[in-house]
């Protein structure tokens, strides 16, 4: 039947030049462009819409996070009834325990989120369109934070589902799950900001990766070490204040003070309410500072 549509002898694969067509459709403007950039960056942070090679690392790391949660759930469910009343690893402790994985994910994806556009000078193409600097920074920041939230919150959902399967106390589990979500949301925004700043200031991708790993891993290692020394010297007050100097211990401090978490600090000497407020203020200041630095970074990236 289809052959009847083309005249006999005509090449059906021939492309006809139909000339230039004007576009009279709708133009959706700034907020649409910002949303498009956000979703493109978020997908990109998991390698979606990019080459197969770039999907490997984010997917493996995501798999590791979920796998660890699944193992914890398996232990909880398989344990003889009555021997366990709660998950072996609390909701709030999960992200802190797995923060090397989160750091690795951030180190691999923050540079691709921002430094590609800088390195290949694509940024002027964005700014020659209705979109503005603020839209660009918000979209990129939002996408990175959302990507981290997916990475950290999905395992919590697995844990929560497992806890309910194991018939643990519903109220306590729901409360813990909620606190965990708030904690990882804060962690996502903080880590994303710091990671993007490091990446945006080092346009070479390799340096960006190294800078992010250095910031998160080395600062965490250093703070933990000094904390242990302080603890062994019985300077327990210093233990909680030292937590201010690394992103992971900051989040630990905030959730210990406000979200009912038991601190991962040596000896469990997490900050009390007073030091907790300082921790929270530092977190908020770092987030605002990251945004400001990013805005400043793109100020000079004209044409």
């Amino acid at each position, binding site marked *: 039947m289809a052959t009847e549509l083309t005249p006999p002898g005509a090449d059906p694969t021939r492309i006809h030049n139909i000339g230039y067509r004007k*576009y009279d459709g709708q133009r959706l*403007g700034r907020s649409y462009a910002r949303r498009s950039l956000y979703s493109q960056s978020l997908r990109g942070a998991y390698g979606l819409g990019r080459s197969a090679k770039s999907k490997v690392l984010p997917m493996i790391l995501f798999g590791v996070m979920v796998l660890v949660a699944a193992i914890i759930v398996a232990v909880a469910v398989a344990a003889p009834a009555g021997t366990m009343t709660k998950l072996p690893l609390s909701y709030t402790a999960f992200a802190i325990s797995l923060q090397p994985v989160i750091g690795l994910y951030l180190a691999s994806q923050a540079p691709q989120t921002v430094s590609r556009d800088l390195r290949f*000078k694509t940024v002027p*193409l964005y700014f020659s*369109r*209705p979109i*503005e600097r603020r839209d660009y920074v918000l979209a990129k920041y939002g996408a990175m934070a959302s990507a981290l939230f997916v990475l950290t919150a999905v395992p919590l959902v697995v844990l929560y589902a497992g806890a309910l399967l194991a018939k643990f106390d519903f109220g306590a589990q729901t409360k813990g799950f909620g606190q965990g979500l708030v904690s990882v949301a804060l962690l996502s925004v903080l880590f994303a900001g710091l990671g993007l700043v490091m990446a945006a200031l080092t346009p070479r991708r390799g340096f960006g990766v190294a800078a992010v790993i250095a910031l998160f891993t080395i600062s965490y290692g250093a703070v933990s070490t000094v904390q242990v020394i302080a603890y062994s010297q019985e300077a327990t007050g210093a233990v909680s204040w030292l937590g201010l100097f690394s992103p992971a211990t900051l989040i630990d401090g905030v959730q210990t003070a406000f979200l009912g978490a038991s601190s991962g600090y040596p000896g469990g000497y997490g900050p009390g309410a007073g030091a907790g407020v300082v921790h929270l203020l530092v977190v908020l200041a770092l987030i605002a500072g990251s945004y400001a630095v990013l805005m400043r970074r793109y100020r000079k990236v*004209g044409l």
Partner: protein
Amino acid sequence: MVRATTFGKVTAVIATEALSKRFPRVTALDRLSLDIGPGVTGLVGSNGAGKSTLIKILLGLSPATEGRAAVLGLDVATSGAEIRERVGYMPEHDCLPPDVSATEFVVHMARMSGLPATAARERTADTLRHVGLYEERYRPIGGYSTGMKQRVKLAQALVHDPQLVLLDEPTNGLDPVGRDEMLGLIRRIHTDFGISVLVTSHLLGELERTCDHVVVIDGGALLRSSSTSDFTQTTTTLAVEVTDSDAHPDGTRALREALTAAGVTLHAAEEQGLPGAGHVLLVEGEGEATYDLVRDTVADLGIGLVRMEQRRHHIAEVFHAGPQEQQIQQQSQQPAHAQLAPQTGGGHDGN
């Protein structure tokens, strides 16, 4: 809504009035007043003449120090976003990520201009076809030739069907064939697509064949603005190179004598330093008749015609023609020295 501008003609695509841009150490634009109508307009100037600064101001990305500018009747100071929605911009430098295909990249840029997803894909397919990218558009851009990359850059400037495109040095880095193709494409943007074009270059010769109107700026000030026919009428020069034959051991001299006898003006100066120097005659062109006359004369002498081409004029010729040059340079030099001191500490802000 948009505040209508009160200066410039209503039909003007770009209008500037005493537009100045001063940086602490340089005056990039110096009281520049332009009135550019629809069509293809060439903006010629040497490096640092203020071309890119002007484009930045026209896109509403950089405020002018003094004066006003309007694009498509919109004031650049207040309606930057509206202007950028209706204008396409092709930068001079590389701006393409190597790891995505042309299609993906242009679709993304179309969405950044506000086109819905379906329209973005359709327009991308159309536009890439118009700029001459076919099967290769599905391959990563990293493997493209310079000519193909320039086409992708052009496509992203056209994909949202703007009313005006600003092309910054689109022929940069192209070989002669690629250059001619790009110039032909630029011509079509206006004739076939109905989009006005402002194209910058530092080569006057290539613009006079493409543009309806040429604006020459130097040191941030207007040097000359006229329709291209003005340029060609006064400056067309034909370069003619011929072979020698047994009857005429010096073909060049024979032709020179024959043409002089026929009443054609020949430039005294022969080209120096180029291949064939000494064998090239520079003939003052007076329209089609000159071509025919040269052809017939060569045929009558029985020598071979190696080439006959229009000489591309260098920007310098316009500079030498204008007496304003020195004056302009003095103006732009003075503030440079006066304000050198205060702006040295503003460098690094990241660390």
